[in-house]
């Protein structure tokens, strides 16, 4: 995406236009005669196209946006691919020529652009560059999924590893996945913790793990995972490390003045359940005050392994509540509402603590233990062969390749080390820890085969390709079947590759694409930070935001599973809702927390542009932001970036109280028009704003509205290409004129994600080839398959080889001896 950001300069042309028009002829005549000659040789029509629509501004004299057609060879665009890719993008997305200037007819434009593309692609085919991505460290999501698939254990990766750097829009870009001491430490620590969780640890000291319920999470209704007949609370899957007794500790929410939130409601009870079975029922004393003892269960026997624990309130009543004042859905919005008589607002859970193990008795069978202990030694003699079997199988999967003799010896050394200090199981646990801390697990190695010279392009090995595929489609390890196929050298076979890609996509693990690719592409991870103003949007609780995210994930997932056209993301006439979201959208007759597919009747809700997630993440907390929405559509959908705003622009005036004086309320549109009156702002804003304004009927949390701050919503406007739009539906239709640009943008981003590296203009021929080969209907599966077949996915360029390998071993050993000295003197801080 990097080269796209540079486009910004070209936007200035819209401002420079009036003076320019008069100079058209003069500029044309002054054109470089050599370049003009090459235009002629390429065909008069292209020359005419440029001089008629482009060269009036983009000539040597004006160099509008820092670009002149006289400086580039139109006949050989491959030589100036970077500039011409910008030209292609600008034309394909309708951003050029600027508004108000004559525009070419669609077929003329298409012929011109296609001609450029064909010439660039032809030139690129002669000199392909698959690139050489850096060593790829597993990021958080990949680490979590890999652990899950390896050990059958769900770990909270956010507390184990620091956040990954994001660049080119994604957190799986190998060049940004650097290793720092803090990170290394985290991997080492995580390896220790996870190995204990996986094998169980009856000797461990009791600890407290606490799960918190967000204060913007409504606890009035049933919460997914808790027993039916209860409301609110929390449901978690907790990994117990040993069979033993555990105490569950619950803290309730209190109001600012120390009363129990919900103190007006008598007879409330809190139920604790393990895997759906009630283990304790605790009465809540409404006279409780802040600082009184937490609610605690007696010690309860729980078995090791992941168990579903929930703490929720017994539902005491149902049906509509008819109070004088209605409490908002975001039930904790005002903490006093929990202590006013006559207002129905029951107690809420603040957190659940799980303390233990006390009186640990051992470790029962768990999923992880079954995955690890594939054999059990009955006699001491059987220990070693069994250990060998266990570690070699685990290491093969974790390292994603057959384990070398040396690696295997290392593993057994570690096993023996652990065995000597404990028993068979402690040896295995140490080996698991070693596997997880090992660079061979944490880093995806791609090695240059011997015989390949520096600068040569070569196919990566089948096993490396298998890893590339699995981390692309699953964000996880290749499974046994994929490793086996690769190990037999069959993955090069086109039919086998297709079969494996289809198999990987069909597997539920490919939901990783929705969770990692789609949410990042669409910026939906920002929903976690979205905090709709509680006074303006009192019904927007965390439950709703979570449902919004799930909706978009499910829509994307349906494109994957049903192998639909990626354009359907913009046009889908169906979506996925639960009760909360259905109510938000005004869809009737949906009850409960289960998401289900519904057909949409309101055309304005079709596709991504009608989804709460997108509309919320592009809004401020207290108002919509047509600019942010416009920018989002330009960047995430069409793939063009407006330049950064200049610094001294006042923020949009807020509709709120300052210094005790109430400002006159104005609609967002009115406030924006004032903002846009500044000329430098207008040049970019007239591209972004009409897009965003067309969505003004959706408020800052994506609910439909017809009035804004009391004024009727006016969604009308004119896009930069002259199209008039006046509704989300109209906008969607206008955008579909540019569906080619959208597909190109989608493919560019998916390829970026798949390769784990930023793309440059030299990758655009690959993108176009993928689109061409995927066919007219742009099916998701075809795009994925053609990415998997593409040169950069299959190949790699060899870097210069290390001079003397032997020497580096020696120096490494030498380093080892003086490492203390080195570290204390030279090692950087941190």
């Amino acid at each position, binding site marked *: 995406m990097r080269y796209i950001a540079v486009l910004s300069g070209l936007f200035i042309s819209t401002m420079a236009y009036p003076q320019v028009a008069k100079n058209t002829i003069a500029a044309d005549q002054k054109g470089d005669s050599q370049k003009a000659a090459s235009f002629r040789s390429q065909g008069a029509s292209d020359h005419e196209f440029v001089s008629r629509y482009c060269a009036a501004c983009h000539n040597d004299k004006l160099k509008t946006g820092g670009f002149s057609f006289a400086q580039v060879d139109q006949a050989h665009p491959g030589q100036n691919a970077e500039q011409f890719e910008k030209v292609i993008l600008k034309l394909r997305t309708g951003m050029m020529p600027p508004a108000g200037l004559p525009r070419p007819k669609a077929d003329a434009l298409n012929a011109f652009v296609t001609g450029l593309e064909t010439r660039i692609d032809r030139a690129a085919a002669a000199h392909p560059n698959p690139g050489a991505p850096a060593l790829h460290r597993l990021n958080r999501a990949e680490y979590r999924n890999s652990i899950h698939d390896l050990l059958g254990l769900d770990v909270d990766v956010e507390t184990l590893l620091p*956040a990954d750097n994001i660049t080119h829009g994604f957190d799986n870009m190998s060049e940004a996945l650097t290793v720092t001491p803090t990170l290394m430490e985290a991997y080492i620590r995580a390896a220790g913790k996870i190995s204990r969780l996986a094998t169980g640890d009856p000797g461990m000291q009791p600890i407290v793990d606490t799960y918190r319920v967000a204060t913007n999470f409504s606890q009035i209704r049933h919460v997914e995972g808790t027993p039916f007949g209860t409301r609110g609370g929390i449901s978690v899957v907790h990994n117990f490390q040993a069979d033993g007794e555990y105490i569950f500790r619950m803290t309730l929410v209190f109001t600012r003045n120390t009363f129990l939130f919900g103190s007006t409601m008598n007879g409330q009870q809190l139920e604790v359940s393990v895997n759906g079975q009630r283990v304790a029922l605790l009465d809540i004393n409404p006279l409780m005050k802040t600082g009184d003892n937490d609610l605690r269960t007696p010690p309860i026997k729980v078995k090791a392994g992941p168990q579903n624990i929930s703490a929720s309130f017994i539902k005491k009543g149902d049906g509509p509540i008819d109070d004088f004042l209605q409490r908002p859905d975001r039930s904790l919005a005002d903490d006093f509402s929990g202590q006013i008589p006559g207002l129905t607002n029951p107690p809420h859970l603040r957190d659940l603590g799980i303390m233990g193990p006390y009186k640990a008795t051992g470790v029962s069978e768990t999923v992880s233990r079954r995955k690890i202990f594939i054999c059990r030694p009955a006699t001491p003699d059987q220990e070693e062969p069994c250990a060998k079997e266990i570690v070699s199988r685990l290491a093969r999967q974790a390292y994603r390749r057959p384990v070398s003799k040396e690696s295997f010896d290392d593993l057994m050394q570690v096993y023996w080390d652990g065995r000597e200090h404990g028993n068979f199981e402690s040896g295995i646990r140490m080996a698991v820890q070693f596997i997880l801390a090992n660079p061979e697990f944490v880093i995806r190695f791609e090695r240059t085969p011997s015989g390949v010279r520096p600068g040569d392009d070569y196919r990566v090995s089948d096993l490396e390709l298998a890893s590339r595929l699995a981390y692309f489609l699953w964000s996880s390890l290749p499974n046994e079947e994929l490793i086996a196929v690769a190990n037999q050298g069959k993955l090069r076979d086109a039919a086998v590759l297709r079969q494996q890609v289809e198999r990987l996509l069909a597997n539920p693990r490919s939901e990783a694409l929705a969770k990692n690719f789609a949410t990042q592409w669409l910026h939906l991870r920002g929903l976690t930070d979205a905090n709709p103003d509680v006074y303006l949007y009192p019904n927007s609780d965390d439950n709703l935001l979570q449902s919004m995210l799930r909706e978009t994930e499910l829509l994307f997932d349906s494109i994957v599973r049903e192998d639909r056209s990626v354009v359907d993301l913009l046009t889908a006439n169906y979506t996925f809702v639960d009760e909360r979201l259905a109510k938000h959208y005004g869809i009737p007759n949906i009850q409960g927390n289960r998401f289900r597919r519904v057909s949409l009747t309101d055309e304005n809700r079709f596709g991504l542009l009608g989804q709460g997630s997108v509309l919320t993440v592009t809004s401020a907390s207290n108002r919509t932001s047509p600019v942010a929405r416009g920018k989002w559509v330009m960047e995430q959908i069409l793939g063009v970036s407006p330049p950064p705003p200049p610094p001294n622009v006042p923020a949009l005036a807020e509709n709120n109280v300052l210094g005790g004086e109430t400002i006159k309320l104005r609609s967002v549109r009115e406030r924006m028009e004032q903002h846009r009156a500044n000329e430098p702002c207008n040049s970019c804003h007239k591209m972004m704003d009409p897009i965003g304004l067309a969505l003004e009927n959706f408020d800052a949390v994506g609910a439909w509205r017809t009035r804004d701050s009391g004024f009727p919503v006016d969604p009308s406007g004119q896009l930069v290409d002259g199209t008039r739009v006046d509704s989300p539906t109209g906008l969607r239709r206008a955008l579909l004129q540019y569906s080619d640009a959208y597909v190109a943008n989608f493919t560019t981003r998916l390829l970026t994600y798949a390769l784990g590296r930023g793309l440059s203009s030299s990758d655009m021929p690959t993108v176009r080839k993928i689109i061409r080969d995927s066919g007219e209907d742009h099916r998701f599966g075809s795009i994925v398959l053609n990415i998997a077949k593409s040169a950069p996915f299959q190949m790699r360029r060899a870097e210069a080889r290390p001079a003397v390998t032997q020497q580096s071993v020696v120096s490494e050993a030498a380093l080892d001896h003086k490492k203390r000295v080195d570290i204390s003197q030279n090692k950087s801080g941190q």
Partner: protein
Amino acid sequence: MYITRKHISRRTVLRGAGAALALPFLESMVPAQTPLLKTAAAPRARLCTIEMVHGAAGSTRTGGKLHYWSPAQEGPDFEFSPTLISLKPYREYMTIVSNTDLNGARPWSPKEEGADHTRSSAVYLTGAHPRMTEGADVECGPSIDQIYARKFGQDTPLPSIQLCIENPGSLSAACGFGYSCVYCDTISWSSATNPLPMERDPRVVFERLFGAGGTAKERSSRSREDQSILDRIQHSVARLKQGLGPADQSRLNGYLDNVREIERRIQAIEQYNTARGDVKQLPNAPVGVPETFREHMDLMLDLQVLAFMTETTRVSSFKMSRDVSSAIYPESGVKTPFHALSHHGEDPKNIAEFAKLNQYHVSTVAPFLEKLRNTPDGDGNLLDHSLVMYGSPMGDSHVHEHRRVPVFLAGHASGKIKGNLHLNCPDETPMANLLLTIMNRLGIEDLNKIGDSSGNLAI
């Protein structure tokens, strides 16, 4: 709270702090009060660098005239300005440095214009000008906390720690425009090319400081295992390098250097743990990230007190927010989102409101100074032996200006900074001069330039 009022029962603490659940764990984990190193009379200074984004109302033209941040008087007899009023009790420790410019954060070419929010944080402690790139070839630092840690942080278990409040992983509006997000994610750079991640979860920080495991014995046996595993990884170095190109080899070398560094840390922490003896009772590890800004601030600052007190590390850097954050701080009484308010549009009412927010942010640091001052250390207290730097890499953030950046120091840095001073610098004094002065005073004497520095300040 855990140090100054230890006699107060946990319940009382809870009652007083509303629903603040975050603190009790510290109580249970605080080892004996005496620092563990054989403390010299004047121990080596601790350095804590805190960054707040978006400048301050006092750096605007209007706010400057009204002395929102910089006091009207220079020298020792200054009156505390409205923004800094919460620091009044620490007057003898305070050094307010006004009217310096952070030039490295400015755009140096037309294409860099507008992206100030992305660049600023990277410049705050480095004085350098970040290279415009979204790739791996980021370049800025090193930052002063890391220069200090490299020289004076190597004999403590951790050379330094990096903490933050807002989630660095989330894609912020500040990111992009040709710059890698890493520039706005961290203020610590161990070298020109190595930005250090900042940790948001107090629990993770806690485990880094004191190790994982419930008892000294458990921690000790775990660190033995960790060491054995790290040793084994180092054995396989040569094998791992086979068939890698030079760039990948150097990447792997970095990885393995880190392995050694971690091994050193684990040993050091284990030694400390042995010396420390067992903790008082069952550890109630911090719950994770608290919900409110204030609770989170308190916890992160408490961890820094704890780290300094035990000399587990002497260096911390702490990022209180991220650029373009639209956070709302209800406790401040200001309802406008942070970034929106910082673009005050020259409206005096907005500027006054922004000053109120700045005042609130500064006030969250006051309890930290209080705790440092109440913690005995060597021949004095911890604030005597610390230098806390608080500031922002922007001045008037409405116009993305990096002139007159707000900054103050607190603490005597083991006698190296006299305090009780408002220094108003001549126009166009580089802020890098302050960075250089801090380094020179703290014992990095051979350093003669940071960024565009032109000399020392008279503080």
